[in-house]
């Protein structure tokens, strides 16, 4: 019960520095109605906690159904012999997290007062548990002892570090507190007898009274080590590398990581090296060199409108390639078509780089990197996977949930920003189109959109073109979430003062420069809190994929596990676990967003 909201209230009496007795009096028994409220709702609370604990700890609950199927719930049918790929993925994310914490100088400190209160709250929670839980007297004693230990530690910190104003002094970095907390969790895997449950060749193995399997505790320990190690490493390199550069690289890696980790590490594409050498590499080089030369010329300062006309011509050509392919007039490799679109977009922004040689060369270098990365990704995505799968996709369970959420957010963000810009623009047709799109999407439930994309979309596709179920789902989610995102961004855009537009016009910025340098940065800063809220929404709504037939964690808990002969009809346990997992992620995100909101509010002054 050490919910952080509780702390806020309890640490408040600072101002009055009242004794606990006065404090209780003031908050619980100040007058007769208050006392009645306390008694009635206190009794209700105790009754409710007893009810929940009774439900959870009842002998009829079959928690081993969840424990046994943990891997299924998390990663569905990912081949066991390839599981190291999953751990590698998680390790990469841990390393990125550690490095980012170091690079962004996560410098918050937790005061000892807070830590001591948290520990004491945990102790109190354990004591409450010991009193209320329907367990044997012997195990009650064990819990009471645990509670006493926590309370003693908390009191020890409180009185050991007590300073002048009767409260503990000193603090510790939040990062290290979190690492310590995670360390305790990892340590418990090695020491606490959670029990070992698994299906081994279809047979249910259930060994109570021992710790979890080595294939669980070892990787988690390694993950912890990677996290802490990369943080320490990040702190060290902070002295040698300018922080701006580290941050830029990390942001780039974060953006690329879902694509690389998912399509290359997890999917394990079966590269056809002969084809790569004969076609893919020459093609990439062709675009790097040809496109580079073209862009170098297009960013020539003296070019003027000719450059813009050429760029628009290029865009028409790039779009026409798709039309031609749809009608079967002529065709080229998908990769070539995409590259032409990228080239046209780069050509459109080229005038912004029309400056000295150095700037233009840097622009060309950026182009080369874009082509190299996109070509590599396209090749990887188009190569068949080598995995031997039991299910329809290599992703499933909670990892599918995460994948859909992350990809949706990444893709819908730019689309949402574009829609918001369109809706607030001065161009009537663009505004009507964007408003119509946003409002009609927002008017219908998500599930109907998902049905549309999984049932009806295939009808719209030209012959011979198919869309994978997962791609259809992500497309639907993206288009849906972009409409909501656009509304959040629009709020931010409206908060940017008219004068900012005028000032940008007066110093001669073009519309795109004004939007990119002045308007959007200010608008997005204001809309960060609602955007995080939107991200939480997207994460929660990924549960809907269960309805349209994807095997996410909810579907597995709701219909796969209860169908196993060993655990026939065991549904509530799995669903409770799913609730807890969603709750932990969504709750911590919303806490974070509230902190952000406070910080943004401070920035405004």
């Amino acid at each position: 019960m050490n919910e952080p909201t509780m702390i806020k209230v309890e640490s408040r009496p600072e101002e009055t520095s009242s004794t606990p007795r006065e404090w209780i009096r003031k908050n619980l028994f100040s007058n007769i109605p208050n006392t009645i409220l306390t008694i009635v709702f206190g009794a209700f609370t105790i009754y409710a906690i007893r009810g929940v604990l009774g439900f959870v700890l009842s002998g009829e609950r079959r928690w081993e159904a969840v424990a046994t199927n943990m891997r299924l719930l998390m990663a569905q049918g990912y081949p066991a012999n390839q599981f190291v790929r999953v751990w590698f993925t998680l390790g990469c994310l841990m390393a990125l997290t550690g490095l980012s914490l170091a690079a962004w100088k996560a410098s918050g400190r937790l005061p000892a007062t807070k830590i001591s209160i948290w520990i004491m709250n945990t102790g109190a929670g354990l004591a409450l548990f010991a009193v209320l839980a329907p367990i044997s007297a012997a195990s009650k004693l064990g819990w009471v002892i645990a509670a006493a230990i926590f309370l003693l530690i908390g009191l020890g910190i409180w009185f050991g570090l007590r300073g002048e104003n009767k409260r503990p002094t000193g603090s510790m970095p939040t990062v290290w507190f979190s690492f310590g907390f995670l360390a305790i969790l990892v340590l418990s895997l090695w020491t606490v007898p959670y029990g070992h449950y698994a299906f081994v060749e279809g047979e249910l193995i259930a060994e109570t009274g021992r710790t979890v399997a080595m294939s669980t505790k070892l990787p988690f320990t390694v993950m912890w080590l990677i996290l802490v190690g990369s943080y320490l490493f990040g702190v060290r390199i902070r002295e040698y590398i300018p922080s701006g550069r580290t941050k830029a690289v990390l942001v780039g890696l974060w953006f690329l990581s879902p694509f690389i980790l998912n399509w290359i590490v997890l999917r394990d594409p079966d590269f056809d090296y002969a084809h790569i050498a004969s076609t893919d590499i020459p093609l990439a080089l062709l675009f790097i060199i040809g496109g580079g030369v073209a862009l170098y010329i297009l960013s020539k300062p003296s070019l003027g409108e000719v450059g813009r006309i050429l760029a628009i011509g290029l865009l028409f050509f790039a779009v026409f390639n798709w039309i031609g392919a749809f009608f079967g007039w002529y065709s080229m490799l998908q990769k070539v078509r995409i590259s032409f679109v990228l080239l046209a977009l780069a050509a459109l922004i080229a005038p912004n780089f029309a400056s000295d040689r150095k700037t233009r060369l840097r622009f060309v270098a950026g182009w080369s990197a874009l082509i190299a990365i996109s070509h590599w990704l396209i090749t990887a995505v188009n190569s068949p996977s080598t995995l031997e799968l039991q299910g329809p996709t290599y992703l499933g369970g909670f990892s599918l949930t995460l994948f859909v959420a992350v990809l949706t957010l990444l893709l819908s963000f730019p689309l949402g920003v574009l829609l918001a810009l369109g809706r607030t623009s001065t161009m009537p047709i663009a505004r009507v189109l964007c408003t119509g799109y946003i409002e009609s999407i927002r008017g219908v439930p998500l599930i109907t959109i998902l049905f549309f994309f999984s049932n009806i979309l295939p009808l719209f596709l030209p012959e011979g073109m198919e869309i994978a179920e997962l791609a259809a789902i992500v497309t639907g989610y993206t288009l849906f979430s972009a409409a909501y995102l656009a509304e959040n961004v629009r709020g931010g855009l409206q908060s940017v003062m008219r004068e900012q537009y005028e000032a940008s016009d007066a110093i001669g910025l073009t519309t795109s420069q004004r939007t990119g340098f002045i308007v959007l940065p200010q608008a997005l800063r204001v809309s960060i809190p609602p955007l995080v809220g939107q991200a939480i929404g997207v994460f929660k709504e990924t549960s809907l994929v269960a309805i349209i037939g994807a095997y996410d964690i909810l579907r597995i808990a709701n219909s796969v596990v209860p169908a196993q002969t060993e655990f026939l009809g065991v549904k509530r346990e799995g669903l409770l676990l799913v609730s807890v997992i969603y709750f932990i992620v969504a709750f911590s995100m919303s806490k974070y967003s509230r902190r952000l909101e406070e910080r943004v509010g401070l920035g405004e002054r």
Partner: protein
Amino acid sequence: MSTEKIQGTRSDMIVCENVDKWFGDFQALKGITATIAEKEVVVVLGPSGSGKSTWIRCINRLEAHQKGTIIVDGVELTNDLRNIEKIRSEVGMVFQQFNLFPHITVLDNVTLAPKWVRKLPRAAAEERAKELLEMVGIPEQAAKYPGQLSGGQQQRVAIARALAMEPRIMLFDEPTSALDPEMIKEVLDVMRDLALGGMTMMVVTHEMGFAREVADRIFFLESGEIVEVGTPEHFFTNPTEDRTKLFLSQIL
């Protein structure tokens, strides 16, 4: 086609001919006709709502006029994108509320346009920006954010930002109206230096001292019309129009 052909004498920086402008039913400018020469400093006076700001904003096309002709440095203000681009980089503007970009540092505020519009290399732009900040007297504030500066300092940064584009004309829209009295002087000093340096300036202000001392000519506007034009001496000592006399009696 060349824009050179339509320009008047080279020394005419701003030419307005019969400029009309409406906001809905309200006519803000009524047949404004005026010529401002190179290196001339012009102060526009008038009661609030007389169309002073609208006029000055039409000159760099923050507002589009609906009738008549405006020619700035030989370029006519029309819907031609190239002309609009050209005017914007030739004409600097300073606003009443400073309108600095709050999310970037002072230095970035000043270098943004030179880098992206004039396409100066970053080093050159920063060097120039530092010179300008030196000139307006706040070189030490370059790394701060606008919100951390006082009003007078912000307005001086705004002047530096406008000057960074190397404009041939500077427009000032009530640059001191939003400032506390003790900060007005520091801004006016910078403007005075600028005028002495030979900049063509058009200033909407209520600072009579500044007008009397620095202006070459004073325009008096009321209800969207130019009522009286003259040198400061003529204007303050011997105005011809009754409306001017009334205005002067109210504010002096």
